[in-house]
């Protein structure tokens, strides 16, 4: 077990290193002049000498390989660099933004799991064919709706129409509700689609017939027998879902004028603040990697058929790659 965890940790570190490399290549090695970006989008009259000073200041005059190694070394010490317009450490900027984002992301995830899961269960549970079809038609709509538009509709209905929740800001619980609903929409729709699909296949399995034959009621068959198995495939995409929530905050926090990771990202992109953008990308990759690691470790607890053995891990390998692939 500990050997398995160590192996997975090494893999996780490998992915993070690769994510750093990819983001470095995209942000520093693509054709384009980082120094000109540093000077700012409006700086049209910078002289070549000024650009050279900037390059020297940020180490951009060194060869790419040297820059790459220097950045990597700083990263290992936990230093993500400094934001260009504000001059503050990137790690600090991200750290400050996390709590506010965590509030809406946590509530959003909760809503998504409850509503999405509930929808999938209700659609397979109902005896009424038309109602089931109607419920199954909802998730595709949820996936197709633009998040920023949905957020504006919510503001229009529940802030201006019926003044229930504030339209902007981060004061108290009421201000968390609408952003959380916005984040929950695509995520909940994804969960509902996955779960309803896997519930339908699970309910066709012979052991479900056995459960019916033994006299289990519909509630017991669905919740106790079918849901437990059907939820496992949905669990493997947790990493994807968390990533979806994280990228959803960019639009959501902009619309609701909330501070948080999404706002930091949007501002950094608008100001072409390369170190902050790289920090956010690395943070997202880290969240994805950690989530998948946790899912892989939790998986055997939920599905006793999966056993982490000392040497050969056939089934776990399948679960791990499935998690990483999406």
């Amino acid at each position: 077990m500990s050997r398995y965890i160590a192996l997975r940790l090494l893999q996780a570190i490998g992915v993070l290193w690769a994510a750093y490399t990819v983001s470095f290549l995209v942000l520093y090695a693509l054709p384009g002049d980082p120094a000109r970006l540093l000077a700012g989008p409006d700086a049209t009259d910078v002289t070549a000498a000024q650009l050279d000073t900037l390059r020297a200041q940020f180490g951009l005059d060194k060869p790419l390989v040297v820059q790459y190694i220097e950045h990597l070394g700083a990263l290992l010490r936990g230093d993500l660099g400094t934001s260009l317009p504000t001059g503050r450490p990137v790690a600090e900027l991200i750290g400050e933004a996390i709590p506010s984002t965590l509030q809406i992301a946590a509530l959003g995830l909760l809503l998504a799991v409850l509503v999405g899961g509930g929808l999938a269960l209700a659609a397979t549970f109902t005896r009424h064919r038309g109602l089931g079809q109607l419920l199954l038609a909802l998730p595709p709509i949820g996936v197709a709706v633009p998040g920023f538009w949905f957020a504006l509709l919510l503001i229009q209905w529940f802030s201006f129409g019926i003044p229930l929740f504030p339209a902007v800001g981060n004061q108290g619980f009421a201000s968390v509700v609408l952003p959380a609903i916005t984040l929950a929409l695509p995520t909940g729709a994804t969960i509902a689609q996955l779960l309803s699909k896997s519930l339908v296949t699970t309910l066709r399995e012979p052991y479900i017939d056995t459960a019916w034959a033994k006299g289990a009621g519909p509630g017991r068959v669905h919740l106790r027998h079918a849901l437990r198995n059907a939820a496992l495939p949905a669990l493997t995409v947790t990493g994807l879902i968390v990533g979806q929530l994280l990228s959803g905050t960019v639009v959501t926090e902009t619309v609701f004028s909330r501070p948080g990771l999404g706002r930091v990202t949007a501002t950094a992109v608008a100001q072409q603040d390369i170190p902050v953008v790289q920090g956010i990308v690395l943070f997202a990759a880290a969240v994805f990697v950690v989530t998948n690691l946790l899912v892989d470790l939790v998986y055997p607890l939920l599905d006793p058929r999966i056993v982490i053995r000392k040497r050969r891990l056939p089934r776990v390998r399948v679960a791990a790659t499935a998690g990483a692939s999406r």
Partner: protein
Amino acid sequence: MTDTTALAAESARASTGRGTAHDDTFATTSADRFADAAASREAGSIVEEPSAPTAADGRTGRVRRLLATGVQHPGTVLAAVWIVLVLVSTVAPGLFTSQDPLVGVPAEKLTGPSPAHWLGTDQLGRDLYTRVVFGSALTLQAALIAVGIGLAVGSVLGLLAGFVGRWVDDVVMRIADVLLAIPSLLLSLALITVLGFGTVNVAIAVGLGSVATVSRIMRSEVIRVRNAVYIEAAFASGNRWSRVLFRHVLPNSAGPVLVLAALEFGTAILAVSALSFLGYGAQPPAPEWGSLIATGRNFLTTAWWLTTLPGVVIALTVLSANALSRALDSEGRRVR
């Protein structure tokens, strides 16, 4: 189109093949047999006599089957019609409206939907319906460029990984793994940071953001096809690898990638309009679906139609693209 020609060639080969067997000139080695088949196929396409009726039969049967599926799935038909209408509006917006998207009548500013202005007017008295119609050009062109880039780069990488295998496969797929660890919107945002703002840059960024998914699906399809017996046969009959790749592997593994393309089209529309909404894409006064909604945001309390109605158009378009993708998918599975 390729399907029907392949079908005609198939039937021609079958019928003339029977003839040659009867004439006792059946080739013995596999290479000869291949040359034989190629020759008879050429002969068949010139003569065309035995194959013509079967091909025509196949075509009417196909049309009838298409109609039957259409009646069974009215939603798919509606989705296809909507997508066609929207696509036509990108090249010929004049067919749908006679007004100018950039010139408004100040006296009619911020009026709600009416017979004169189907979707109402904006703060400068411009007709919103006209702006949505003209806006489809920017949004959909960006989405199409994005899908094109994603498909082209992703397919090449997936094809290489699946067909060559070994270390190429390992390298490409590890890179894809890493790219999948970063949410695609964040990846697009990182690319925009470097490339700068503008519709084309947004399109490139969104397209590159989808490369990993496409390459993964292409690779799994190529591997499925590559292990098929007919690929072995194609190699055994002395084909060069390039011919096997382009003539056998690529056409047979393209199906699921096309399904993905329809899906990615919808995703790209969402991503492009979201990025434009954030202000990284088309700049006003150019009409673009995302930035139309961004402008309407300032008039939420007074003019609901400025945000609501363009959003409905985006949602319907994405919904249609997804529905088409699903229909293609189930059709592909049925055929296979």
